[in-house]
């Protein structure tokens, strides 16, 4: 089977179509626009639906409508667009409608610029929009994973009736790599809760309103139970040389690629560094981090923000090991060497 050289952003659309997506609604924004371009090109040719909405408020509302109608729906955007989607994301969670939302993070706040950052972490991972709600957050770090994670996102979204975020960044969106495409197209199953405009589904109601306190509390509890179930069932991460590690890098997305290179260089220099890369940020691999904490001298969280994931790592290890933050903002990306030198300096070489 041939591998296809494609951008991470394009790979999203290949993963989506093979994952059974039926509808794409979106609004252009750099550095996520190639997702919409690929969708505009490929969705109609594959007999699926593409529409450029007038704004992200509308595109997420269209996801809400089409998901309610039983479609497999996806959109792609970046920070400023995600801010506008907050309302719809909250409604989607409240009405428990499945959808897939790709965030190709750029540098902020405000208009910021189109360079990579990982500063939407708090917003996406800890509930985008009002109310106590979340969604699964997948964190790809290659074009291959942009395809694979989007591919599996639809099934997850339907299993939990929730939003599945694919949280990437400008570099993972723009990078071109060989991608091995999934060979099977997933089908979109019939949902007994959806609105098909027919006699069978006529009695269905999709709403997030609960007028009685105890009912609304019950609904909230039900959502939280679902999130707890996710933590048990789908938490996913990747480890490198943790068995004897004194130091542990924790990073996701583009930063995990750089840290992994640094980790290997440091090992070559005899420094016992391991690495843990969360593939799911929600649920977060906190149990595994807590397990590892006992053997470590230090955890280093590397991220392109003011330090957002680092708080989840600190919560996870419950003070059992010091947790340091290496961070960059504004779009600057560290070189492998910068990270190597910094840890080397701290450890005094060994």
């Amino acid at each position, binding site marked *: *089977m*041939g*591998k*296809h*050289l494609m951008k991470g952003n394009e790979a999203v659309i290949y993963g989506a179509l*093979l994952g059974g997506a039926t509808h794409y609604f979106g609004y252009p924004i*750099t*550095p996520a626009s190639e997702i919409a371009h690929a969708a505009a090109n*490929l969705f109609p*040719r*594959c*007999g699926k*639906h593409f*529409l450029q*909405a*007038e704004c992200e*408020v*509308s595109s997420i*509302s*269209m996801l*809400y*409508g*089409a998901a*309610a*109608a039983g*479609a497999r729906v996806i959109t792609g955007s970046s920070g400023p667009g995600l801010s506008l989607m907050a309302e719809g994301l909250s*409604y989607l969670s409240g*009405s428990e409608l499945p959808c897939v939302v790709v965030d190709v993070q750029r540098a902020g706040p405000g208009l910021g*610029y*189109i*360079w990579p950052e990982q500063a939407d972490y708090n917003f996406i991972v800890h509930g985008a929009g009002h109310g106590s709600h979340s969604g699964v957050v997948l964190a790809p770090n290659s074009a291959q994973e942009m395809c694979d994670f989007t591919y599996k996102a639809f099934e997850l979204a339907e299993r939990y009736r929730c939003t599945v975020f694919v949280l990437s960044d400008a*570099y993972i969106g*723009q*990078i*071109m*790599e*060989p991608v091995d*495409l*999934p*060979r099977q197209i997933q089908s979109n199953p019939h949902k007994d809760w959806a*609105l*098909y*405009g*027919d006699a069978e*589904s*006529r*009695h269905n*109601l*999709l*709403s*997030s*309103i609960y007028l009685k306190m105890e009912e609304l509390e019950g609904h909230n509890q039900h959502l939280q139970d679902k999130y707890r179930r996710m933590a048990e069932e789908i938490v996913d991460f990747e480890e490198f040389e943790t068995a004897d590690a004194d130091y542990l890098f924790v990073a996701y997305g583009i930063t995990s*690629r*750089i840290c*992994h*290179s*640094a980790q290997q260089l440091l090992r070559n220099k005899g420094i016992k560094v391991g690495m843990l890369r969360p593939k799911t940020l929600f649920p977060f691999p906190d149990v595994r981090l807590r397990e590892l904490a006992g053997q470590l001298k230090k955890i280093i969280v590397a991220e392109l923000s003011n330090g957002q994931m680092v708080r989840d790592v600190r919560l996870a290890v419950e003070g059992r090991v010091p947790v340091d933050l290496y961070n960059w903002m504004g779009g600057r990306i560290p*070189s*492998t*060497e910068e990270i190597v030198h910094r840890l080397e300096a701290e450890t005094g070489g060994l």
Partner: protein
Amino acid sequence: MLAGVKPSCFFMENKEMHTIKHQKARSLYPTFERKAPGAEVSHYCPGCGHGTVHNLIAEAIDDLGIQDRVVFCSPVGCSVFAYYYFDVGNIQCAHGRAPAVASAIRRTHDDAIVISYQGDGDLAGIGMSQIVHAANRGENITVFFINNAIYGMTGGQMAPTTILNQKTVTTPSGRHAANEGFPIGISEIINSLHAPVFVERVSLATAPKVMKARMAIRKALRNQVDKKGFSLVEILSPCPVNWKMTAVESRRWLEENLEPVFPVGNLRDLAKGPFDRVDRKKAGRVSDRKILEILGVDEKEVHTSSIHLKEEQNVKIAGFGGQGVLSTGILLANCAIAEGLQTTWLPSYGAEMRGGTANASVNISHEAIGSPIVSFPNVLMAMNLPSLDAFEDTVRPGGCILVNSSMVPRQVRRTDVAAYHIPATDMANNIGSPQIANVILLTVYALVSGAITLETLQKVIPLSIKRKNLVNINMKAIEAGIAWLEENRK
């Protein structure tokens, strides 16, 4: 009748009222279980227009025989609970977004009849963008717009349709144009667009007017059944509670004050929509096999050889935007894939691409590639002077620098790298196109690095260029590169 709306009291003095059916429409629930077990009374205030409109819509649904097909999008506003009453598919939407939600539902099911029911705060305030764009796309949906010139649910604040001098809790001395602007005519705005097929403004002030509203509502739904396109009915409707009037007073006030500002009547009734809609069912399904073919899932691999890299290649290709720097990187990455190697390509992008310098980072390796960022390349291809100036010092000792010397008036200063000064643009012009200068550089790179073979380059180029008449000239560029290296190799 929708119980509890007190339509009987509302129409008490209008004997004509009795022409409207007394029996409850089938598409309304007999009792409102979603409100409360056994509930027979609605949540609307006495004299409110919402209940009347609900009845008219339900009757029309019954008469058109479309109950099973209807999906009712309720807004945020007093009618947020429309799903208590309508025995049809129901979805509750965020404030103002119902037209976007309805559009998407309609674009999912060709045979669904989708209703967007909205108040004036919902449609003309927060949701102005959604309604205008849904109308402009000519979505095949039906919109019922309840204009009561006030925010009902939240306690009587100003709406975009509040008339001048009308007192509300947020315009306690009346609406003044100088501060709050003028009341918005939604029907007129929608009528300024090309796509809608039906726009009518009606009033609930008197029984004869209600009969007209009934006809308009019916027409707007029938249009959707006939797949004609976008229909909107604006209904001037009383909100006695927030207008601080009795039911009877409110209808008089409506007729005397709202109707002059919002003239009732039909603004548009097209026999046919302005474009043929795409019927997705007829457009036909694309088979899974065809989709796999379109996505190239079964495409064969171009070529696999077993190259042995001396070391991982960290290549930086830099030049002016428009010199084909990014596409050269893609060509190199495609060759690496054809060689069965791992590769990554990362562009510089953004403002600097417009006119300034652009660069691409390409890694080629036997192993999975960690960081795709090339901070310290072992190969630099500099297509212009600013690129050589910017990146010369970053090249790792022992690496190599290939310079397009036609564009770079100086020599490489570093002595710890292999330098090749190739007049690539001049050579390319001699062959017939400046575009192929990059291929000449790539050829020399292939030969000196051994990272890709010339056979692979020759096989991949035809696959990656769109204009097939350029294949020949590219092959000549490869020959030129080979010849240059033979002559200049010391």
